[in-house]
């Protein structure tokens, strides 16, 4: 194989044939092209004619060039050009292929595998054996060791079976394994590194160099994995910290929080600033959502370190704060609730409410500030809630001291809900008359939940309630004063706790609520309700499910060992303890890779002589076949051109009698026909859709139809039967109008509110039906515009029940009307008054019957004036199914009988219709006519 820059040739000697191209050029030059044949009737006149200068006809230069190019392509194509040929392996020994398969390798795993396969290709081409070496042990007990000398095909099978492991590479062990490796001659070493700096990298590289030339391939620094730390559990938000190896360039990553079933809960952005390796993503979530989060991962990352599993330690418990009255807020600094809420809010979700409500909700902790005896039912409810696992935190105070202390407290109401019995009253530890200073808080015992909290010096307790001494008082005491009296007592009842703080939650009895200790104590108390017993020193946790190398949670393989708690504390990750969830059901503990990974850096320190490169080497590409195809295409073009030059295609070659020409023409027509068919097939859907679009009325023709003639119009409800009646009714009314008045409307038009413009119609008939779909916002806007600009809509409820109770109990149609017009600007309505223009617009009418009689016709109250409508009401609401009375069939006969009946009623219905249309079209001039006598009279004065 001979290389020529990035191109190499498999058979370079074939390129010598390129030297023959000039000869081909010469040959093509001297051979005249074949003449084209032309039939010609006037040949007798041509016979004997010869051109004066006989310059030989030459093949055109561009055709020559085309043919030479084709020949050159054939030659080059046959010589087998290869793009990006791989270089030869150095040395003579077997190829040592070191593949990192620790957690960080998952990020570029496919590139890594491609690179490994490319190396194996090289080895196969040069017939080398291969030694495979991975850097992360698959089993906890199996030490790392290099493979035997493998044939490349066998090695390929092994490489394809490799998977990244969710624990770090162990370069020390690899180095030990390499020590044992015996190879003949100098072995080329290729190390597919994960690109992270570790202390052992350099040593291993030096050791590998002793085998032969080391070529190290690593991902680009910008392409290194991002690790995620488990979220910090303090504060109101969930903060997730990301770490990256490379600190160059600002990038933003999306952090995904999902629940235990893999459903997305929330996403948040984390932005790395330039020069920074850390970024924080903040989730602000309601507590219920926050507690559902069981897994936080970085989008676009597939390593085990990019996943942080969350166990119940991260779940915040909801706290209920019992407030009985709104008075508490009036003077916040005196209110116990104020102090409690301020102290609890940063760590817990606090809800206020009275005790009954809070017990009904699913609260983990309920804080009850100074409170006397509870009602018996509430107490029982609270007791059973505590026994189910709730934590009731009570504070003492004047009320509690008055009602729940002393032996009388247990009379009547029964046992109070307190951890200890209290002595009557309480005690004042300091006051104007006391000599001694109030006692301090004693240091917390190690077995107390408050253990380890530091006690401020200036803390003083002025008053407290005292516990009745008993045998178990010591066990129940969580905090005590320096003189030994208990300050916080607690008793476990069932699964829950009752905790009593023997002083108030406000600054009345002590300044404890003002101190930072109060906050921390409350936090500890709240965490008691977290289900997991933190102090429970159990044995090693059995594995439940573990992450694989790509950060997917799966069942733990048999090789995973139980996790001792010290390993959990120290974040020990390895083949024996892969990251995942450990522990029994209900007490899962998350074991995360992120903290164990620590602060990673891109690989920099390498011994000199190591050849460093990326994975992204371009694979070999063979261009020979493509060049041959190109040559074939060129030759086909040449053939077409030759045929063209001989007159087989040209328009000048027409020849009425020539059979060949006829054939060509036939072929052309056939070809044209085929093309036409193809075109038709291609266009068929388009034209079909165009037709279907054209079948509906396009806006212009609709507008013309609506405006060239005066037309009545009805709103299409989408209910076929109703729309048909409306259409037939308006048709009947149009006929009546034509016969009796000077209004001669054409056939009525349907109006689809969503698409048709409304402005063309003076009057819209709108049959109200329950089935009509609610209007879109656009349609509502259109209808409002129409009403505001002088349009008139007649809503017909078509409901036989008298509609006098429009505002009250509504029939189905009434509700439908209300639903349809919810967002329409319906003006105030009133029943048609006796002197209204509607009663005399054309006919004199007293009532307005339709198919039914008796329903009131409501009309906009225009007496107040205003509006654009020339005094014409924009909205009329009728009940009498007018269209039903007007409807005629094809033969012009009425379709429906009118009730109570009689053709007189139908006639009256038509008169109502005529008056309506007259009213909508002519406005209030009839009203003016009526007033003329009065006006004349006034003028006469």
């Amino acid at each position, binding site marked *: 194989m001979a290389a020529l820059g990035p191109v190499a040739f498999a058979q370079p000697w074939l390129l010598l044939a390129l030297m023959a191209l000039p000869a081909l050029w010469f040959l093509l030059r001297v051979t005249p092209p074949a003449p084209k044949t032309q039939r*010609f009737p006037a040949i007798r006149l041509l016979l004997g004619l010869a051109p004066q200068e006989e310059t030989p006809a030459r093949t055109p230069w561009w055709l020559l060039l085309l043919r030479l190019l084709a020949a050159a392509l054939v030659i080059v194509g046959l010589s087998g050009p290869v793009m990006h040929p791989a270089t030869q392996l150095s040395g003579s020994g077997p190829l040592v292929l070191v593949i990192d398969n620790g957690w960080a390798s998952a990020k570029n795993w496919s590139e890594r595998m491609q690179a490994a396969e490319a190396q194996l290709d090289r080895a196969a081409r040069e017939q080398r054996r291969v030694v495979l070496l991975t850097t992360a042990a698959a089993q906890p007990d199996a030490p790392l060791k290099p493979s035997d000398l493998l044939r490349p095909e066998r090695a390929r099978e092994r490489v394809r079976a490799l998977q990244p492991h969710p624990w770090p590479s162990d370069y020390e062990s690899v180095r030990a394994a390499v020590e044992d490796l015996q190879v003949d001659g100098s072995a080329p070493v290729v190390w597919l590194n994960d690109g992270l700096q570790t202390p052992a990298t350099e040593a291993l590289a030096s050791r590998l160099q002793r085998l032969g030339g080391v070529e190290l391939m690593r991902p680009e620094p910008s392409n290194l994995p991002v690790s995620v730390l488990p979220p910090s559990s303090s504060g109101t938000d969930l903060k997730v910290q990301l770490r990256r190896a490379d600190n160059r360039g600002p990038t933003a990553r999306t952090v995904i929080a999902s629940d235990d079933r893999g459903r997305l809960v929330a996403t948040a952005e984390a932005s790395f600033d330039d020069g920074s390796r850390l970024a924080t993503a903040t989730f602000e979530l309601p507590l219920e959502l926050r507690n559902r989060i069981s897994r936080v991962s970085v989008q676009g990352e597939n390593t085990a370190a990019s996943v942080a599993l969350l166990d119940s330690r991260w779940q915040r418990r909801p706290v209920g704060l019992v407030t009985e009255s709104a008075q508490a807020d009036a003077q916040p600094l005196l209110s116990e609730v104020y102090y409690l809420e301020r102290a609890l809010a940063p760590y817990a979700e606090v809800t206020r409410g009275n005790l009954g409500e809070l017990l009904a909700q699913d609260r983990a902790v309920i804080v009850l500030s100074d409170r006397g005896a509870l009602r018996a039912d509430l107490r029982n409810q609270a007791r059973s809630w505590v026994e189910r696992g709730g934590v009731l935190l009570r504070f003492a105070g004047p009320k509690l001291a008055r009602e729940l202390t002393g032996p009388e407290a247990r009379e009547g109401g029964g046992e109070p809900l307190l951890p200890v019995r209290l002595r009557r009253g309480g005690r004042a530890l300091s006051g104007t008359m006391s000599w001694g200073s109030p006692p301090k808080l004693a240091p917390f015992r190690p077995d107390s939940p408050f253990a380890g909290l530091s006690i401020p010096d200036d803390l003083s307790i002025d008053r407290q309630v005292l516990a009745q001494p008993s045998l178990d008082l010591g066990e129940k005491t969580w905090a005590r004063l320096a003189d030994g009296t208990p300050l916080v007592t607690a008793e476990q009842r069932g699964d829950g706790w009752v905790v009593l703080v023997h002083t108030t939650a406000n600054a009345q009895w002590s300044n404890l609520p003002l101190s930072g200790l109060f906050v921390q104590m409350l936090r500890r108390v709240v965490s008691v309700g977290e289900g997991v017993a933190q102090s429970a020193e159990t044995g090693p946790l059995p594995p439940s499910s573990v992450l694989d190398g790509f950060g997917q949670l799966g069942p733990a393989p048999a090789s995973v060992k139980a996790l001792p708690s010290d390993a959990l504390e120290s974040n020990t990750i390895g083949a024996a303890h892969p990251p995942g969830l450990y522990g029994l059901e209900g007490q899962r503990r998350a074991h995360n890779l992120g903290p164990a990974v620590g602060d990673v850096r891109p690989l920099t320190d390498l011994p000199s002589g190591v050849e460093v490169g990326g994975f992204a080497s371009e694979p070999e590409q063979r261009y020979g076949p493509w060049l041959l195809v190109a040559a074939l295409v060129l030759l086909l073009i040449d053939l077409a051109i030759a045929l063209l030059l001989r007159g087989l295609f040209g328009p000048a070659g027409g020849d009425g009698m020539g059979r060949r020409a006829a054939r060509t023409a036939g072929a052309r027509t056939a070809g044209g026909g085929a093309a036409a068919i193809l075109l038709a097939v291609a266009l068929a859907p388009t034209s079909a859709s165009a037709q279907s679009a054209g079948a509906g009325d396009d806006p212009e023709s609709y507008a013309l139809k609506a405006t060239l003639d005066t037309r009545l119009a009805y709103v299409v409800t989408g209910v076929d039967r109703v729309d048909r009646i409306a259409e037939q009714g308006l048709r009947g009314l149009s006929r009546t109008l034509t016969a009796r008045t000077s209004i001669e409307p054409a056939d009525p038009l349907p109006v689809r509110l969503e698409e048709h413009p409304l402005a063309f119609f003076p009057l819209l008939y709108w049959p109200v039906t329950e089935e009509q779909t609610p209007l879109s916002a656009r349609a509502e806007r259109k209808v409002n515009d129409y009403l505001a600009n002088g349009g008139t809509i007649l809503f017909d409820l078509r409901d036989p029940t008298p509609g006098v109770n429009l505002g009250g109990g509504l029939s189905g149609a009434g509700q439908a009307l209300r639903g349809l017009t919810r967002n329409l600007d319906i003006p105030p309505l009133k029943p048609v008054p006796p002197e209204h223009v509607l009663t005399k617009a054309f006919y004199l009418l007293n009532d307005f019957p339709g198919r039914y009689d008796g329903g009131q016709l409501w009309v906009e109250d225009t007496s107040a004036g205003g509006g654009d409508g020339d005094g014409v009401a924009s909205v009329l609401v009728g009940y009498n199914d007018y269209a039903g009375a007007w409807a005629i069939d094809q033969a012009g006969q009425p379709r429906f009988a009118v009730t109570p009946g009689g053709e007189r009623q139908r006639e009256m219905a038509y008169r109502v219709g005529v008056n309506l249309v007259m009213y909508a079209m002519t406005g209030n001039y009839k009203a003016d006519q009526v007033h003329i006598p009065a006006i004349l009279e006034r003028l006469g004065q």
Partner: protein
Amino acid sequence: MSSAGLSPRQRAEQLSAALPPLLLHADRVAASVAQGVHGRRRVGQGEAFWQFRDYQPGDSPQSIDWRQTAKADRVFVRQMEWEAAQSVWCWRDGSASMDWRSSNKLPTKRERAELLMLALMTLMVRAGEHVSLLGTGLPPAANRGTLVRLSEILRREEPAEARDLPAPEPLPRYGQVLLLGDFLADPQEIERSLRGFAERGVKGHLVQVLDPAEETLPYSGRVRFEGLQGERPWLLSRAEGVRAQYRDQLAAQTDAIREIARRTGWRCTWHRTDRSPQTALLAVYSALAQHL
């Protein structure tokens, strides 16, 4: 001319519809007995009044003009002018060389020639002249059925049987001949053929129909020309090189035809198939109407 689906005769009718009937200008009408519109300036059968003369015994009583008789003492007979029809024998070149066109957009020369001929015949029949086709032996006739029959004969003629030039045929004196063709044959042969008619006193008109490519020789490059009637092929290395010479040859041919026509007293018209047939029709019409 939107005449895609029409038969040649229908197209000819369509073409001739724009012109009035063609009454041939005839100095001397063929001595046929057929009644026609050419007045013979003598008494005979006819429509036009010629003279009154005195009644003579033997005259048919029906011929007495009673109105004239009533004006005088004598009895008059009304005599009409003898009106005879002119007879025209038409011919078009039906040989293979006519069945050619240089482009699909053009009609073949034969189509065009037939169209012109039928159109002229239609016009003449409409004027009452009698037409026939040379070589068919049919007597000239002036009814529309004749046209149908003649166009059918044209349609059935095989190009292989057709000849370049009309065969001499005994025609009545003062008959007229209308010849359409490309007249690319040897001028001597053309003259010989025409003389066969002219020597009998038959007058005639030539219409030369040529394809535009035959005038311009638009070919270039290396071209092998083949004849349509078995002529030997001719290879030209550069067809564009002989274009001028070819034009000269064509001009010489045309001149020769014109000269032959002059000698025989005939007339000739030229037509190219890329021109409108109306133009040609109008030219031939006016030539025929003036003189033949």
